[in-house]
Structures are given as C-alpha cells and as structure tokens.
C-alpha cells in the first residue's frame, strides 16, 4: 500500500515539474536562510555557556543617577567592592575582579609586540570561570605579584616551541614597568566568551603599584560573583542597597545602585552599559529581528506550498476519489498527503545543505567575521534543522491534506470533482499575508538605509576625510609629538599635524562646577585632552573666543567648551567664566567651539570641556592631501620609526574608524536588504505558480474571450486585476505595522530621519512591479496564444 502511495507521489512530482520546482525552491531558500540565521542566533545565545558554573555567575553592574535624573549604567565598580561582598554575604562563594589594560608594548628578548589583550585579575577567576590549563597550576598561577598567565597563541608568539613557564615577559604598563613571570599557559579563549584576553596578570601588581586601588573612591574594576549552590541571587540583590549605605559616605551612595547581571545575559543584554570589557557586544534586538525574518521566510515558503497544493487539488481530487471508492480510509489519504509534503520538505532541506555550505563564507564576512559559524561537527544542529524541516512539511501539508482528502467519492460519479472554488478565499488571504510581509520588509529596509545614509551625510562638525591617526601608547611616544610634527609638516602632502582625542571615542567623563547666579551648579561632562592646533587639524570651528595658542602661556589653565555646555549651564557670556574640577583646580573658559559629534550619532551631543594636555593625548593626527596618500603614509612611518625605533608603527584613517562605529547597524542593514529581497523572491515564486495555474484553468475562458474579440491587453488586464488588489490590500495592512515598529527603532537614535511617505509608497510600488513582472510573462503568453488551441481542450 505504502509503495503505491509513494509511486503516485513521485509520478505526480514528475508530472508537474514546475510546481514541484516552485515548492522545492521556495522551501530550499527558506531552509537556507533559516539555517544561516540559526547558526548566527545559536552562536549569539551560546556566549559564556561553556562555563561550568555559568548559572551561578553574575556581573555586578553599577547604575549611576545624576541629580538631574540622568541614568547611566557602567560595568566598572569600586575595587574594594568584591572583597567586601564576599565578607558580607554568606550566599556568595567567590568573587573576582578584572581590569582591562590599555594597549601596552611587551617584549621577550628581541620579540616586541603591542598587546591590547592584557588584563589584571584575581586568582579566583580560575575557580569561577572555566579555563583550560595547558601548563601550570590554576590554584597558584596568579598568587604572587608579577605572575602572568598567557594563552597558547601568545605563548607561541613570544616563545616559539620552547617552554614558557618560568620565563619573563617585559611589559611597559605605565604604573608597573617590568618583568612578569609566566606561571601558566591556557587554551585561547573560545570565540563565544564575552571575556577574551591574551594575557592575565595578577591584580596584586596593581594593588602594590596604586595605593588607592583598594578603596571605594574610584571605579576601576569589573566585578563578578559566584553564588553558592542553591543560593538565590534575589536575596543578595535585595540587600545590596543596605550594604552600600553601610560602606559608603552619603554623597557617594546617593544616586548609586548595584545590580547583578546573570553571566549568560552579558553578551546580549549590555547595549546600554558603558565601560565594558566585553570582546564584542551582541544585540538581543538583532537576534530577535533575524529570528523573526527566518521564521517569515519559512512561513512564506509554507504559504506557497499550501496555496499551490490546494489550488491544484482539482487535479488530485480524481485520484483521491478513486482511492476512496476502492476502500481507502480518509486517514490513509491524510497520511499520504502529509507524507508527500514531508518528502518535498526533506528534499528541499537536502538541497539547502550545499547551498548553505557555499554561502557560509560570504555570510560570515558580511557579519564582519565576528561570528564563527560553521557546521563542521554540528550533527545535533543539523538534526535539529532536519526535524524542523519535517515539522515544516507537516505544517505545510496538514491543511492541503485535510482539504484534499475531504473529496467525497460520490462526486466522482457526478463528475463534479473538478470544482476548485473551495479555498479560494483562504488562498487570497494567504497571498495577501505574503505580500504584506514582503512590503513590510522592503519598507523597513528602505527606512534603515535612509537612516544610515543620514549618518554618513550628517555634518559631524569636523572633517573626517584624509585624516590619519597614529595611537600614542605611552609617555615616550607622547614626548615626541613636537618633534614628529615638526618633521612631518615639512612635507607638502602634509596639511596639518596635531594630537588629541579621536572623535567618535567619546573620551572620558568627569564632574565640573561653574559659578552662576544661583551659586555653583555641577554636572557630568565629557572631556577631551588635546594639543595646540587640534581644532585646525580636525577642521573644527570656533563660535566665540579663541583656541589654545602658544602665544598665551597661561593657556595651561584654560579650557574650551562646546555650545551644548553653554546651553546646559545657561551661560550668557561664557568667555572668562571659571570652571572648577572635583579636586578644586580652577580653569578659565577662553573659547566656545561649534558643537561636533564627539561620541555617537545614537546619542545627543553632550557638554564638552577640552583641556590643553599634550602629555595625555591619545592620538597623533595628520591631515594629509588627497594626492599620493601611499607615499605620505610611508613618510609618516619612516619618521615614526626614526624617532621611536622601539615602538611598532600603527595607523588608521578617521572615516574608516567612524564607519566601523556603526558596524552593527551596517550589519543589520546589509542583511535586511538581502533578506527582504529573498522574501519578495519567495512570495513571487508562489505568485508565479498560482498565476500559471490560474492561466491553465482559465485557458478556455481566455480562448472564448479572444474569439469574441478581446485584445492581448484585455487578457493581461483580466489576469492581473486581482493581483493589483492583493498588493494594494497587502500594502494597506503592512504600512501601519511597519510605521509603528520603524518609528520605535528610529527613536533609538538622537539624530534620526523623520518618516515620510516615500519609503512606504516606494516599497508598495516595488513589490507591485515585481509581482506584475512575474505575472506579465504568463499573462502575455496567454494573451498571445492562438484561441483555437485553447478551445481544443474541450
């Protein structure tokens, strides 16, 4: 019996290849997109789960409220917090602190490298997190001052094949210049770890070097806690305010809250948290968005399947009737049709595997190589997708199965089985839904593209083009700023040279006070440490007063502020006003600079204070001419190498740095464009199939109409009229929904485009045109056909 069903399935398929192709192609595209997105999503969800005690680990996050009600979350906490928490709370089994150090120059004999993955940490990290020691003993590895544990890649880089244990790496870490003894080698951090370091040195080094390090005054460390088995984190969370009150003076605990963030949330739920040490930060919004898209595409393919199968049911109805007549049970026929759709789904799934394999590298690079997705050794994953394929087959097959198997055999005798009027309404509703999704995705995409273009065209308040930056990693390199500048400016291709902060970085923040009419008013502002000529090199404009100048020796006690700062403090005549810092130093305002985007376009411009501080400048900035950029880079490198032979040369261009800052939006943008096109394609595949079917069904009608004098245009119009209505209805459904969600998305940006009619009309029109293109091919051929041929079917 089963074989007989199987035979009809396969012979049916070979008898209607186009429809089979449409079903398989749609599902294959669906599975491909689904598999790719699931690889990405599972990778995002897998962050930090490899830690054996992951369910008991929490990061302590600090919530700071300013008197004006501004809230910011920071991942850095007071150094004394961790030991105190452990003493105070019996629920806490262990605590650990990390400090990520800025890039340092390290060397072992003649091997010198800049390292940006150096952290200082408590030895308890080995109890809390899961590390794989290749050499060394985790319980003693970070016990002593100047102990260091390195990963395998770093071990090979410095020591080659020799045993690193007991050897010394020299690190120039400002506060502690000296030799660190290698006490352990660990396996490289897995890609799905939010912590990722090449070197971990004992935090005791810092405790000795910085006397204030054990206090409550500053936020320097990232704190993690490990709860005892069975202990609830809510008990700890509830008692944290009391704990803070008992530890801190009132001016510090006021406006301060602590909360425990589960380790497994750190990667995806930290978008709003500042000063993190995550090696990359994921976004739960993206995970949700892409999962939704994956489901959409599969859903669209399912709709195609349901529509085509039910539309063509008249053709299958005969077979069903005969089988029932000969005594087949209703249930057997349901199994047959569900089986058939499962066969199609499995076939599509098998086809999608090589397609995924082929697309994977491109997909990876589109995701900026951040995600290591591969399905080598991913049998459970593939099995999961396979089961989903079967489920999709089941879902897509259930309705057609019940629909088809409900044919009553008595109708066979009466010759009425050819009627396919049933289900037409459902079919139209499903197509409308498909096009709604397509219109929605295209609208969303064009709005995202609009917002991204707005970013790149929005005046930033400075000129980011042809601006080269070279990081200044230490005191020695900063001391050479005047000399390097002097040499470089001699070259005609170098337009200006200075040093300072990189726009887009956001710099650091501090609290300052200004004396106004109503006494001192205090505020947290951003700050930037810059050299003479910074404003000119960056192409920034002064609104009032002047910039720092060598002609005014007193400028070391002067500041420049931005327009927002003036507004925030309500200053009428800012020049000459005095600004006081927390340690009591007083600076005079000598100029107001035009607002420029210092942090991110996602945020509003904050009040900013610029200090003249060549010894704290983070970057050397070189404005180069457009001509012969390559040789200018060579010149800068040569000059650098001559003056700082022990410092490897690194450089970048500001505009690339800035565009990388919007990487996650760019990523979403590219993928959304791709996916919405795919969605439209899948929807059109279905439309193509249905039109083909309708045209086949109406071939006699078309013939008669032509005999009676209908023109090609009449026939094309007759066949496309319905689609016009469907796309219009779909657009009307999709527009408000998309408007709601995209408006919410845009509200996440301080500087956003306003929503016009354009993206909505554009997407409706685009989808309509694609649908018409799909239709017209068949409508035209039907219109052009010889009516006698059509009527011969009689």
């Amino acid at each position: 019996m089963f074989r007989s069903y199987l035979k009809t399935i396969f012979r049916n398929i070979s008898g209607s290849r186009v429809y089979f192709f449409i079903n398989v192609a749609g599902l294959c595209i669906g599975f491909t997109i689904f598999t790719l997105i699931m690889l990405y999503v599972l990778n995002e969800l897998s962050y930090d789960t490899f830690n054996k005690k992951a369910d008991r680990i929490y990061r302590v996050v600090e919530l700071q409220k300013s008197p004006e009600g501004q809230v910011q979350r920071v991942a850095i906490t007071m150094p004394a917090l961790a030991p105190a928490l452990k003493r105070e709370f019996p629920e806490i089994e262990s605590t650990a602190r990390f400090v990520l150090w800025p890039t340092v120059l390290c060397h072992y004999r003649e091997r010198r490298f800049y390292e940006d993955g150096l952290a200082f940490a408590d030895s308890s990290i080995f109890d809390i997190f899961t590390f794989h020691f290749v050499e060394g003993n985790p319980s003693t590895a970070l016990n002593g001052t100047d102990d260091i544990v390195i990963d395998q890649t770093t071990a090979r880089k410095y020591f080659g094949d020799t045993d690193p244990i007991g050897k010394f790496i020299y690190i120039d870490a400002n506060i502690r210049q000296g030799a660190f003894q290698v006490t352990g080698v660990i396996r490289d951090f897995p890609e799905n770890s939010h912590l990722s370091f090449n070197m971990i040195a004992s935090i005791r080094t810092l405790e000795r070097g910085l006397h204030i390090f054990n206090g409550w005054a500053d936020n320097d460390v990232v704190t993690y806690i490990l709860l005892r088995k069975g202990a609830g984190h809510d008990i700890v969370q509830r008692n944290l305010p009391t704990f803070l009150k008992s530890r801190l003076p009132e001016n510090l605990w006021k406006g301060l809250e602590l909360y425990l963030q589960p380790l497994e949330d750190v990667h995806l739920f930290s978008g709003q948290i500042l000063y993190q040490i995550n090696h990359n930060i994921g976004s739960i919004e993206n995970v949700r968005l892409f999962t939704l898209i994956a489901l959409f595409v599969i859903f669209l393919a399912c709709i195609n399947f349901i529509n085509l199968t039910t539309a063509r049911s008249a053709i299958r109805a005969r077979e069903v009737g005969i089988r029932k007549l000969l005594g087949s049970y209703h249930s057997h026929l349901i199994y047959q049709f569900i089986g058939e759709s499962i066969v199609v789904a499995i076939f599509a799934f098998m086809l999608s595997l090589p397609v995924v394999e082929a697309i994977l590298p491109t997909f990876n690079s589109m995701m900026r190589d951040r995600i290591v997705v591969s399905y080598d050794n991913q049998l459970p994953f593939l099995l999961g997708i396979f089961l989903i394929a079967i489920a999709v087959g089941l879902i897509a097959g259930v309705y057609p199965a019940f629909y088809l198997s409900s044919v009553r055999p008595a109708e066979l005798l009466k010759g009425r089985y050819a009627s396919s009027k049933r289900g037409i309404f459902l079919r139209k509703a499903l197509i409308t839904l498909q096009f709604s999704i397509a219109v929605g995705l295209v609208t969303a995409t064009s709005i995202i593209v609009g917002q991204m273009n707005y970013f790149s065209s929005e005046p930033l308040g400075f000129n980011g083009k042809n601006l080269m930056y070279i990081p200044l990693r230490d005191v020695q390199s900063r001391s050479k700023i005047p000399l390097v500048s002097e040499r470089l400016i001699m070259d005609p291709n170098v337009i200006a040279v200075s040093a300072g902060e990189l726009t887009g970085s956001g710099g650091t923040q501090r609290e300052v006070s200004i004396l106004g009419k109503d006494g001192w008013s205090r505020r947290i502002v951003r700050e930037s440490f810059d050299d003479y000529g910074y404003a000119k090199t960056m192409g920034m404009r002064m609104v009032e007063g002047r910039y720092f100048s060598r002609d005014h020796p007193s400028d070391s006690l002067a500041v420049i502020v931005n327009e927002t700062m003036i507004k925030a403090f309500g200053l009428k005549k800012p020049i000459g006003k005095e600004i006081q810092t927390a340690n009591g130093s007083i600076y005079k305002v000598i100029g107001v600079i035009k607002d420029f985007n210092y942090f991110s376009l996602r945020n509003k411009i904050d009040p900013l204070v610029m200090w003249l501080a060549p010894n704290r400048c983070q970057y050397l900035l070189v404005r180069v001419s457009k001509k012969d950029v390559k040789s200018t880079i060579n010149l800068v490198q040569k000059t650098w190498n001559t003056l700082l032979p022990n410092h490897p040369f690194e450089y970048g261009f500001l505009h690339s740095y800035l565009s990388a800052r919007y990487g996650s939006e760019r990523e979403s943008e590219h993928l959304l464009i791709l996916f919405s096109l795919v969605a439209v394609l899948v929807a059109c595949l279905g439309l193509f199939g249905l039109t083909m079917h309708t045209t086949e069904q109406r071939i006699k009608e078309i013939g008669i109409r032509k005999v009676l004098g209908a023109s090609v245009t009449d026939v094309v119009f007759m066949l496309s009229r319905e689609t016009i209505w469907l796309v219009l209805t779909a657009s009307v459904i999709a527009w408000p929904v998309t408007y709601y969600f995209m408006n919410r998305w845009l509200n996440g940006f301080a500087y956003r485009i306003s929503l016009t009619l354009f993206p909505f009309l554009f997407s409706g029109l685009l989808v309509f045109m694609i649908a018409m293109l799909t239709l017209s091919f068949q409508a035209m051929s039907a219109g052009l056909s010889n009516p006698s041929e059509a009527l011969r079917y009689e």
Partner: protein
Amino acid sequence: MIRLYNLKKVYRTDQVETIAIANANLRIDPGEFVAITGPSGSGKTTLLTILGLLDNPTEGQYYFLGEDVSKLSEKRRADLRRKNIGFVFQNFNLINQLTVYENIELPLLHIGVASLQRKQMVMAVMDKLRITTRRNHYPQQLSGGQQQRVAVARAVVGNQKLILADEPTGNLDSRNGEEVMELLGKLNEDGATVVMVTHSTEYASWANRIVQLFDGHVTNENILEGMRSVSELS
C-alpha cells in the same frame, strides 16, 4: 443482496431542497443483472451512489447483504465497499499516475492480499480481459475501450460480489460498447450481481430486469422474459 425500504435522498443547498429519490423500494437478489434507466435528473446516479455505499440515504432503510447500512460511518462503509463492491464509470476513473497493472492491483492492496497471491490475481484478470500486453502502459496510452476494460478488471479483481456500472458505455463507440457489455454479461454469468445505470434502451436490454426511475420515483420494474444469454451470443 439489496433491499431498499422507503428510501429517500434529499439534497439541501442554501434555500433549495431537491428530492433526488423519493420512497424507493427495491430488491435485488444475488446473480441478477439489473439495468436502471430514466431521463436525466431522475435520480439514477444518486441511487447508484447509495447502492455503492458512497453516500447515506436521508430516510428509509438500506439492507446490504442482510445488514442495515443506512446509517453507517464512512469508515465502515469503506470496509464493506472494498470487500464487496466493484465500480465501473463512464469516464473510466483510472489513476493516471499508475500503470494498468498498478491500477488493477489497487483494490487488492486495500484488502491486504499478500504480494504473491496479488500478482496471481491481477495476472489472471488481465488474462481474462485480454489486456496483459498493456500491463506497463499508463491509462493515457490506451484507447477508451481498453481503459474501460482495465476499469472492469479493477472492479472484479477482488472477486467483488456486486458490480456497479455508471453508463459504462457512454464514452465508447458501439464496437467497444458491445465488448464491455459482453464482459459485464460474462461476469454476471460467473455469479456477480451487476447493477448498471444507462440511458440506452439497447444496452438496458442486456439486463434481466429494468428498473425505471422518474423524478426520483421507481415507476416501473420489467422482468425481461427473453433475456439474452451471453453464452448464446458469443
């Protein structure tokens, strides 16, 4: 074999109620060859549908092989159908995706006949109906007469006791029509009960009894005295 008592079949659409069969009483005994005739819309096909257990009557009783089947579930009807009833249609109703052999084999698959025996039964019936050479052909590759022979083969392959034929000659030329009638007659001689719906008085005369329908009523039952014997003709 078949007893109908006051059988009624009513079709209801939104507002219209159509009485397809009104108070029909009928008895058909094993081994009979009955022709049902009547003008279009007189309820011939509806009657056949009910006799074939494809539909339940609205009122009245239908006894098939001594069992009241007027209110059976579709599943029970399917069971009775597959074991006892063979169908032959005007438009053959073969499954286009299956070969001649596979089409004939289908009822045996439903009954659950073992593979070897199934093969023997199919071969025997194909041999009897002279279609063995066509065994691997698909229905579309056969002439109308050949297709109807396959349909007849399918109707009798499981030794069904009752053959229901709905205008079996309607789509055939006279030569092929004669041939099919001969086949039905032969099957009747071999013991099968045949009930045939037909427009044609000529083909009706092959039966030994004619049941006439008009507007859903059984108006006349003629026992044909000079019933033609198949053996006589062949």
